[in-house]
């Protein structure tokens, strides 16, 4: 089954649309009417977007959803999805792929904050940049992303992979401040530069191919390691949290 959703230009582009029902799982059940919230009102999807459904699906994995148009303020797309695929041609709003447990989301533009928050499985590929709290936990939570994979070709904002407890994250660009804060597991690879990385980590592995600026001082230096043909400085910590995580970085500078 192929679903194509084309969002029309909003009358007021500042009003966000909450579209947690746009998942392959929702299209599997035909009776389901897809509703979205525009501001504080609920509407059928047809009020804000044109959509067409072609073909039939016997399982969720047969469903491919293509989202076009003005989607930079459409939130919660793919929340709780368990299979199938969503492709977004433009930018996507916050909370894309929250709690997803399977399937694949591909974003050809950029993503806003909270991309893949608390996801358990599946795959997210973002060709542009991602906002703050990419692959992280939520306010007050103790465990962020638990499984699956996230790949961002651009850069990400602050608090990337906060509280991450499992899964794999690959960031091709740079990160903002406090990447991998409170890390509890999983593997994060940052090909660019990062700042104050892995603060208070207790377990997990983080590779920084660029430079880790303002390194947290409470990490124990273990020497150098050759990984993937690149020489890394190996750190253990965060000692302040009696942590046992591994941080590998090519360059690092402490706060002056």
């Amino acid at each position, binding site marked *: 089954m192929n679903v194509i959703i084309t969002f029309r230009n909003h009358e007021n582009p500042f009003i966000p649309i909450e579209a947690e029902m746009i998942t392959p799982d929702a299209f599997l059940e035909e009776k389901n009417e897809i509703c979205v919230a525009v501001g504080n009102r609920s509407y059928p999807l047809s009020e804000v977007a044109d959509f067409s459904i072609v073909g039939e699906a016997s399982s969720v994995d047969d469903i491919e959803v293509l989202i076009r148009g003005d989607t930079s303020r459409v939130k919660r797309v793919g929340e709780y999805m368990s299979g199938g695929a969503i492709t977004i041609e433009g930018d996507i709003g916050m909370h894309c792929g929250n709690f997803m447990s399977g399937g694949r989301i591909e974003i050809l533009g950029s993503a806003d904050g909270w991309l893949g928050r608390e996801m358990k499985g599946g795959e997210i590929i973002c060709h542009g940049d991602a906002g703050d709290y990419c692959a992280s936990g*939520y*306010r*007050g*939570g*103790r465990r962020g992303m638990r499984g699956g994979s996230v790949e961002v070709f651009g850069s990400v904002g602050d608090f990337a992979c906060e509280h991450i407890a499992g899964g794999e994250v690959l960031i091709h660009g740079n990160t903002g401040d406090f990447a991998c804060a409170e890390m509890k597991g999983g593997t994060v690879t940052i090909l660019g530069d990062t700042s104050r990385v892995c603060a208070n980590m207790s377990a997990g592995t983080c590779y920084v191919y660029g430079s880790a600026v303002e390194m947290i001082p409470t990490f124990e230096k273990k020497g150098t390691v050759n990984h993937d043909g690149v020489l890394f400085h190996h750190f253990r910590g965060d000692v302040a949290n009696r942590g046992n995580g591994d941080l590998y970085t090519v360059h690092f500078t402490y706060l002056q």
Partner: protein
Amino acid sequence: MAEILLKNAYVIDPISGINGEVMDIAISGGKIVEEVSSKPEVIDCQGCLTLPGGIDSHTHISGTKVNFGRYMSPEDMRAGRTAKKGPMHITSGYSVPTTYGNSYRYSALGYTTLVEGAVAPLEARHTHEEFKFTPLQDSCANILFDGNWGMLRALEEGDIKRAAAIIAWTLNAVKGFAIKLTNPGGTEAWGFGKNVSCINEKIPTFDLTPAEIIKGAIRANELLHLPHSVHLHCNNLGTPGNFTCTIGTFGHVPDLNDKRQTLYATHVQFHSYGGTGWSDFCSKSEPVANMVNFRPQIVIDMGQVMFGRTTTMTADGPMEFNLYRLHHDKWSNHDVELETGSGIIPVNYRKKNLVNSIMWAIGLELALLVKNPWQCLLTTDNPNGAPFIKYPEIIALLMSKRYRDAEFAMIHQDTEKRVPLPAIDRELDWHDIAVMTRAGQARALGITDLGKGYLMPGAEADIAIYPIKTDEIDPSAEYEKIIQGFARTEYTIKRGRVVSRRGDAIIDGENTTFWVKPKVPAAYDIQHDPTFMELFERNYSVRMSNYPVQEEYLHRNHCIETETDL
């Protein structure tokens, strides 16, 4: 105000000596009356269990500490979300819900009066503001005096009357209801990084022991003739082996009042631990319950722990720090100038954890081993042991041995060797439950004179009607029906109006705050005492004139004036 006639109500009203009579109740002008005019609104109760409105004598629902629990746990707000419905506001939160969440959920359980267990006097204003938005329950605030420098100095000098005068001024100024002592001396010591471990050990900053503070406060309380007794959270909460401290404290309590108890000891479950450490941790509910059985001047509440996620919050700062060292999760501590402190930690009580399983058993044992239900009231120290929405489950556990055994099979297997619970066969009856959830509370708080806790003409029309037909249910076997029945009233009536119907609040409501004003002779008016004024001006961050909570903050309120012996 509208008149209501309740027909065919199956009433259990322990204070009036009614145990299961089908009768009619007439309500007019917010009170229960002998009879109403010819055209009242008639509610046919069809023989459903009808009790006085529930009273929670120790809960944490309002004030800075509770609110800080809300700040600290945004994840708690992800649960318990309800949408706007009729007059009901949006609510959210599970263990520390919004004020309206507390109010609606208590109302659905049939509760109409709540006592906020611990309010720092300096921060009482916030508590009163939140009371206003807990509209379906009348409220009282227990005021913390455990580290009050003015009172401690007076006790140090052996001047009980001066201590009583300071208490009287403070209660009046902050519109409080009763004296609360939380880890007396210990929270004060914690301001200097220390704690006390024994009631007969001098506290570091004053020439006093916790036992002397407790005894002094009890005598001052009786000099002021306050409606409630001293409300005590004993020292050494949560420490293995603390039952000796608890029993020692109870041993110091004289019998000074013939209308009510002389000491109300709260959440005693947390104070009935044996062992020397966590490895040999065990229940000592039997000696504690025996002590209570021999001492009619003491009333305790359970402080039952139920499994699941919750937030602990208490004025006992050092205890919360010790808890943090066990959990290594987020925590907060707070010091309140010359008065007290507090701490907050989110916890998760787990069935697979031996210590948590023993704690669960101890609360039930206390309720079952204390022979007189008037002396052991039902609480969870909400939300410390569990959120109050677990009350129906606790009632079912107390009424059904079979349910206790079924739950016992699910908890940590080593619990059996450490607790006497499996050997206790007692099952409480409907009357006992009515005592432990409303009548006992009303008497212990001393608010029966205000028309609380009974259903005779002259009483406030606070009534809970549960969808329970007592003759059709066998409590020991059909515990599911007890849980369902107590979880949602058919009608909750507050001051003569139906406020909650089958779990939904149907009107906005307006509550009353009760506060006390002891009539102190001019010689003991501490407001003009130069020593006290100097202490205030030198050490407080606010001026004495800005300290009192003005009556405007109280909304609807009722002042209880007491004659004093000063």
